[in-house]
């Protein structure tokens, strides 16, 4: 009965080799799976490895500086073993990605129509006329007003929100099975963010693409995602259904993140803070990577790396003190 997940990542590890011979552990033994049509939020702060994970999936890490190991099974392919040609056929086709800054992702010297048509012709072929029709249809789908006129505009003529819609239209051009969205709303105003999130909810309800949404904003996750994985210092520290994560987080880092968000329901004098700094990833600590900043840490935490273990079905935490409820009286 259980269909295999659309994408299954196992023991993904990314090491960056610096010029000075130092290696940085950007991503360490990450296991993730996303089902067909599901939406996974990948949450964490700068440098936690969430974007590197997505670049590894897309095969966009430079082979010269990054050492990628593990396996990424997607739709019958092992992406880490696949050749460049296979990856080129997949990217923009069954595997699509949108980035934070739409202006630097669009080519300023071509019209948006050209850029959508290019993707369609590359992967689907057919006549230029049919591709243009499809492009207009796509622009309509992402709610760009009068798409038949807008299609001939250059990117600089469009506002930030519009550009992000164009990026989404390009990503959707070949009906991808998986859409990776890396901070798609971070550069946008709240009102535009709401529009783009609405659009993503629409895509979700229409079925089709699974989405991996990478963000630092837990609010955005709550609005769009079904499942969440929280990353810290290159590792997944907690994975749960979205309701579970917000009602009963099982990793102290997640507790800290939730507590440091300004509250809308009541006025708190002080917000929770996470003191200290992220560990140096050239020499990650032997034990739990969060232990030095963790108020719940005990001696055992620093002795051995904690496993990502299930606290309840489908809710895993990389904390030996979980379930956390028993720690507070």
């Amino acid at each position, binding site marked *: 009965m259980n269909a295999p997940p659309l994408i299954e990542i196992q023991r993904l590890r990314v090491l960056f080799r610096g010029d000075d011979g130092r290696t940085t552990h950007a991503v360490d033994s990450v296991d993730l799976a996303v089902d067909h049509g599901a939406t996974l939020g990948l949450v964490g702060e700068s440098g936690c490895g969430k974007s590197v994970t997505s670049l590894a999936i897309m095969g966009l890490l430079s082979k010269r500086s990054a050492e990628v190991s593990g396996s990424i099974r997607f739709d019958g392919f092992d992406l880490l073993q696949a050749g460049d040609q296979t990856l080129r056929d997949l990217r923009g086709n069954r595997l699509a990605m949108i980035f934070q800054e739409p202006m630097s992702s669009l080519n300023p010297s071509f019209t948006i129509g050209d850029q959508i048509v290019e993707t369609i012709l590359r992967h689907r072929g057919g006549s230029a006329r049919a591709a243009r029709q499809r492009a207009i249809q796509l622009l309509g789908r992402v709610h760009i007003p009068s798409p038949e006129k807008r299609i001939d505009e250059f990117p600089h003529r469009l506002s930030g929100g519009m550009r992000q819609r164009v990026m989404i239209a390009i990503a959707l051009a070949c009906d991808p099975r998986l859409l990776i969205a890396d901070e798609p709303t971070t550069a946008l105003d709240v009102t535009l963010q*709401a529009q783009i999130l609405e659009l993503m909810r629409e895509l979700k309800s229409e079925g089709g693409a699974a989405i991996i949404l990478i963000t630092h904003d837990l609010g955005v996750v709550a609005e769009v995602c079904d499942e969440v994985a929280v990353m810290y210092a290159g590792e997944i520290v907690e994975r749960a259904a979205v309701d579970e994560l917000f009602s*009963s987080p099982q990793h102290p880092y997640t507790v800290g*993140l939730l507590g440091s968000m300004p509250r*809308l329901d009541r*006025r708190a004098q002080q917000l929770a803070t996470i003191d200290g700094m992220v560990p140096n990833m050239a020499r990650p600590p032997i034990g739990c990577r969060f232990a030095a900043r963790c108020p719940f840490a005990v001696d055992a935490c620093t002795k051995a790396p904690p496993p990502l273990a299930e606290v309840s079905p489908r809710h895993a935490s990389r904390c030996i003190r979980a379930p956390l409820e028993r720690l507070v009286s």
Partner: protein
Amino acid sequence: MTALLEAENLVKHFPASRNLFGRPTSLVRAVDGVSFHVDRGETLALVGESGCGKSTVSRLALRLIEPDAGSLRFDGRDLLALDADELRGFRRQAQIIFQDPYAALNPRMSVSQILGEPLALHELVPPSRRRARIEELLRLVGLEPRLARRYPHEFSGGQRQRIAIARALAVEPKLIICDEPVSALDVSIRSQILNLLRDLQDRLGLSYIFVSHDLAVVKHIADRVAVMNLGGIVETAATEALFASPHHPYSRALLSAIPLPKPQAKRTRMVLQGELPSALDPPSGCRFHTRCPFVIEHCRAEAPDLRAGTGDAINHPVACHRAAELPPAGAILPFDGGFSPALEKLVAAFSSEQGGAAGGVDIIGRPAAE
């Protein structure tokens, strides 16, 4: 008691293009008749989308740029009448911190030089005592005094923002303008800076003008909020009042756009369609009418004034022709509990161990802290 800062009908238009003779041919109406006041020890937030003029207002308030019209009074004195010397004196009273602490600190100056400069410039502290004062300032913003010899690149983003705050505090100002001070920071660092700003305000009696597009942050930090749209204020109210019942359709749209950290929250969504109009060619009448779901013919023809209501709404002026007849705001921000009780306890335990204020919860199975 008079307000610390009072602005009346501020206007600032920037030339967008000029003709052959250098005359402006088109104008960006960045700020078009803005009035507000900031009381002592109070935080006023200016919120709105990019390009609404909130940063321009904050720079006008410091006279970093000159208004085209309007009046500005600080501590009872006419700011626009000050000459260069007096203006320098005024800079002791009012400071600004910016969004990007990477760009705001000179990379070639050490922290002690950065903090020493305002002390020397305003001849506040004799050279012999400067080092002690710099150490004191660093402690005030939660940095160790031994860091004074380091350079900005050796610090993280949050630490740099602390240095920028220390520099603003060096001259013992009464007012600090915070222009998106936490937008570039990670969530956990953001909360540290917000706590610091709140703490400094309590200890030093500072007033803040807090410019931000992040309404959750504004809810946390501000006493009063002014909502700006395309160069004008459309609503001002006490923070609690605004979040409980936003009157202006634009304020409602902004509040309903806040992503709530609560899956499946039941709320009224009001997603604005269309684009922000350009301040180069603002719409006729009410500048919000192109995006407003409640628009009527009158809105297109005549611009509404910012008008106070009666009774409870006396301190809650709104610039909308239809303010009185709009449906109740309803569940734009549902208040049915935030955190689950279990999470509430965990967060309290988390912060009490960090030396936060929310103590009172013990953690079982852990030796008592020394």
